[in-house]
């Protein structure tokens, strides 16, 4: 059995020894350095850009402006509002206004200094709440709204009239920066046929492929995109690699030389997509026992200067806004709006961490109104099997929510521990808090047109197996997990299986590697491809024995005659037979996601094919003298359907949870009211170090998903999503203070302890 085993990941050794090649490590003969000149103004009209002096500098090959883009000067993500290089207006600090290709770094930097830019500054819109005010500039469409998603369920007005208890609260969340250790980078190489090959760090090679062809004015058949080893992504390499690849490709086409663009950390943080800052206002109604009867939720996401992925990020946030609770009447309105700040896009959780922070916090606040323990209050309101979510989706099998809850309560000894942690004389207060969350696996009905995956599987002469998929490895371990799935499908050892690199010329379009979909969706395509090859192998065995192939059973790495179980061919013999008989030994299969449904106006439908579930129990210590909050212990239980590789599942739980702890306690990317970034460096934007890592208790729950490969369902975003509310709830348990603005910095904690509610 290869599924369920902790096989060592195939890329571990090359990475640990420094041999793995990332795009920054690549070199090509004649390669030029590509740089991007960026706007220092948050909003303005470009009057002139004078490049004459820059072109005189020795070693400078090309300076490209928006008008020089050979194809369409648009980087199309979901909509087509973002230019590859700004041409008329700049809309955020960091927006590209000119590209440079030079022989070396020094010449490129000199050219950047020598370009004379004249921009007429305009009054920027930086507060998303003012998107519709009469003084606001029009940045997008006719109302500055990228998207407005709704849910209408039951009769909310009636629910509030009949309620025994109503509370209303507002929650805020900040930008979060992905802080992948490898910054964005791309290498573009002109081909002899007049096309371009692109190598780089990315999640979605087929997005990059489309944009590169578009901006270079090339047929898609002339463009090839190869993923290099990718040093972390977390959603941050979903949309913007198309921009970086566009810049490198345009420079390569114009220079007729290979061009490598590697962003430095400051420009990466300043100009690449972030997690949307948000404001969520919730009004909750309950009956006299405390059962939730209605919810009215208004969500506002700051989308920044261009739409990129805001519409679909917001959609996931909307579907998850009411949590996994039984709420018969609900009205949700969620908007993502334009401002003169960096565009926001995908980040682990994809719009749901913001809304889950709000619903998971207000559940505790409502529990307090009834004097019920937050866990008991959840037990009263959590969905049970066969009941409906707020979008009207009936929850069926693969529903490990309650098992997650029970296991995390048991392992943390919550009921005994939570009130025994504090002593009145100790200025360090301790407490425990919980969050119970869910995660829609895959793209769901928000992305059905992309929901296809392809797989190529080939059995070699020596009986080893090669496979390729179009989804990508970015550190999560996909290549290894899919290798285990292939090995298990044939019943052969994992060591016989190898995964090819992702190359758009070789691998079928598999949509994006997002939404925790790679294991489930590429896994399904692989299982189906392996199934086709097993039928081909059965034909070979049947022909050899002169029987019908339906009498042959191919499993456990051999072919057996059904009527004579002692008659079999082992894997080597079987493969040799198939090759000798010239049977199919390689196959490409496509798989489409199981169906979903959605009604736009009511927000009702089966939003996702299936959900993953999690419970987080956090134990915090709050130093009331300094306001420093420490996450001491964390129990994180996740229903993953089936853990194909438990060690890699734990790795996702531990790593995602710590990113969530960073989001809860310290990470706050800041842009001031004038639109100027304040902390685009690791020195000033802090991510957790080993000292911030809690005692971690990952708990794996396996509630099999029948349509997933061997029961597996995606979940790798989920570990981040519920940490902030669990920590906020633990802080309340420890101190009696409620923090409604994330992150819970010492400043905010001290303000709360002082009773200053405006800042916390």
């Amino acid at each position, binding site marked *: 059995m290869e599924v369920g085993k902790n096989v*060592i990941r195939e890329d*571990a050794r090359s*990475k640990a020894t420094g041999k793995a090649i*990332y795009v920054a*490590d690549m070199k090509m003969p004649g390669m030029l350095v590509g740089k991007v000149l960026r706007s220092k103004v948050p909003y303005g009209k470009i009057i002139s850009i004078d490049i004459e002096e820059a072109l005189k500098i020795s070693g400078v090959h090309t300076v490209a402006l928006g008008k020089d883009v050979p194809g369409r000067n648009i980087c199309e993500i979901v909509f087509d509002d973002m230019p590859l290089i700004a041409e008329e207006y700049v809309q955020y600090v960091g927006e590209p206004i000119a590209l440079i290709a030079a022989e070396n770094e020094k010449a490129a930097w000199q050219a950047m200094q020598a370009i004379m830019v004249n921009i007429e500054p305009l009054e920027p819109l930086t507060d998303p709440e003012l998107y519709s005010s009469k003084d606001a500039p029009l940045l997008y469409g006719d109302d500055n709204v990228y998207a407005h998603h709704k849910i209408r369920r039951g009769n909310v007005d009636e629910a509030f009239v009949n309620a025994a208890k109503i509370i209303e609260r507002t929650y805020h969340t900040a930008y979060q920066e992905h802080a992948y250790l490898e910054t964005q980078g791309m290498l573009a190489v002109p081909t002899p046929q007049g096309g371009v090959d692109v190598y780089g760090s990315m999640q979605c090679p087929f997005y990059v492929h489309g944009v590169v062809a578009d901006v270079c004015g090339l047929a898609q058949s002339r463009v090839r995109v190869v993923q290099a080893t990718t040093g*972390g992504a977390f959603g941050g390499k979903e949309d913007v690699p198309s921009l970086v690849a566009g810049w490198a490709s345009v420079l390569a086409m114009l220079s007729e030389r290979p061009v490598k663009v590697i962003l430095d950390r400051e420009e990466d943080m300043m100009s690449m997509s972030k997690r949307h800052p948000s404001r969520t206002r919730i009004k909750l109604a309950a009956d006299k026992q405390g059962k939730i009867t209605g919810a009215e939720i208004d969500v506002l996401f700051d989308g920044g200067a261009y739409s990129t992925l805001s519409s679909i990020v917001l959609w996931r946030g909307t579907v998850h806004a009411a949590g996994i609770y039984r709420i018969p009447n609900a009205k949700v309105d969620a908007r993502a709006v334009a401002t003169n700040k960096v565009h926001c896009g995908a980040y682990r959780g994809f719009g749901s961490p913001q809304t889950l922070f709000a619903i998971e916090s207000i559940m505790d606040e409502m529990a307090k109104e009834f004097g019920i323990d937050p866990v008991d209050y959840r037990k009263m309101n959590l969905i049970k099997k066969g009941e409906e979510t707020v979008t009207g989706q009936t929850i069926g099998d693969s529903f490990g929510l309650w098992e997650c809850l029970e296991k995390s309560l048991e392992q943390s000894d919550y009921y005994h521990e939570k009130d025994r942690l504090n002593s009145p004389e100790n200025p360090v207060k301790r407490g425990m808090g919980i969050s119970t969350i869910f995660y829609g696996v895959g793209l769901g009905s928000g992305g059905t047109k992309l929901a296809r995956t392809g797989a190529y599987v080939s059995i070699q002469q020596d009986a080893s197996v090669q496979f390729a998929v179009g989804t990508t490895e970015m550190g999560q371990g996909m290549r290894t997990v899919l290798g285990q799935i292939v090995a298990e499908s044939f019943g052969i050892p994992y060591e016989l299986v190898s995964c090819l690199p992702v190359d758009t010329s070789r691998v079928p379009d598999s949509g994006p590697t997002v939404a925790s979909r790679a294991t489930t969706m590429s896994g399904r395509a692989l299982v189906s491809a392996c199934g086709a090859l097993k039928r081909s192998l059965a034909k070979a065995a049947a022909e050899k024995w002169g029987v019908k192939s339906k009498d042959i059973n191919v499993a456990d790495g051999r072919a057996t005659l059904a009527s004579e179980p002692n008659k079999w061919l082992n894997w080597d013999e079987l493969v040799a037979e198939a090759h000798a008989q010239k049977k199919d030994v390689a196959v490409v299969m496509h798989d489409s996601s199981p169906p979903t449904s959605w009604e736009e106006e009511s927000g009702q439908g089966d939003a996702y094919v299936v959900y993953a579930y999690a419970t987080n129990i956090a134990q915090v210590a709050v130093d009331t003298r300094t306001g420093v909050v420490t996450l001491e212990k964390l129990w994180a239980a996740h229903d993953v359907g089936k853990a194909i590789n438990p060690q890699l599942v734990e790795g996702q739980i531990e*790593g995602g949870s*710590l990113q969530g702890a960073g989001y809860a306690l310290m990470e706050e990317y800041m842009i001031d009211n004038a639109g100027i970034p304040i902390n685009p460096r690791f*020195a000033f934007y802090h991510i957790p170090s080993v000292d911030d*890592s809690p005692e971690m208790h990952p708990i794996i729950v396996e509630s099999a998903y029948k349509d997933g490969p061997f029961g597996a369902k995606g979940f790798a975003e989920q570990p981040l999503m519920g940490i902030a509310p669990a920590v906020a709830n633990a802080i309340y348990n420890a101190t009696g203070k409620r923090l409604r603005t994330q992150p819970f910095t010492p400043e905010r904690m001290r303000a709360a302890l002082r009773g200053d509610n405006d800042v916390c």
Partner: protein
Amino acid sequence: MFVEFELNGKNTRVEVEDYQRLLDILRDKLNLTGTKEGCGEGECGACSVMMNDLLVNSCLVPAFQVDGAKIETIEYISKTPLGEIIVDSFCSEGAVQCGFCTPGFVVSAYALLKVNANPTEQEIKTAISGNLCRCTGYTKIVQAIRKASEKIS
């Protein structure tokens, strides 16, 4: 200007520009790309190397300062008996994900275990507190270093 130094056990002479850092000459001039640039300001530790038997961030060392020094990079360290044990432990304990920070962690672990074969948990944490990892949550990295120490002590 030229600098001469001992690199991975061999005498090396290389021309450097005044604006270059040790990291640049390793990666760009000497093709030792196992040493990574994560932040360029000494915050992340992805560029960790050994300089005169001490752990340094190579992004903070001006290239001319290397003259006369002894430098060891991941390419060399991972082939030493101690380095091999550390690499094996990182692989078996699941301490590698995207891998961009990993060479830096291996170098930091090597710097620790070379002088302290049996460190406490806190000593391990202190030794890697200058390295940032965004993927793993550090738990399995600490486990891997502990496992390596058990193997050598």
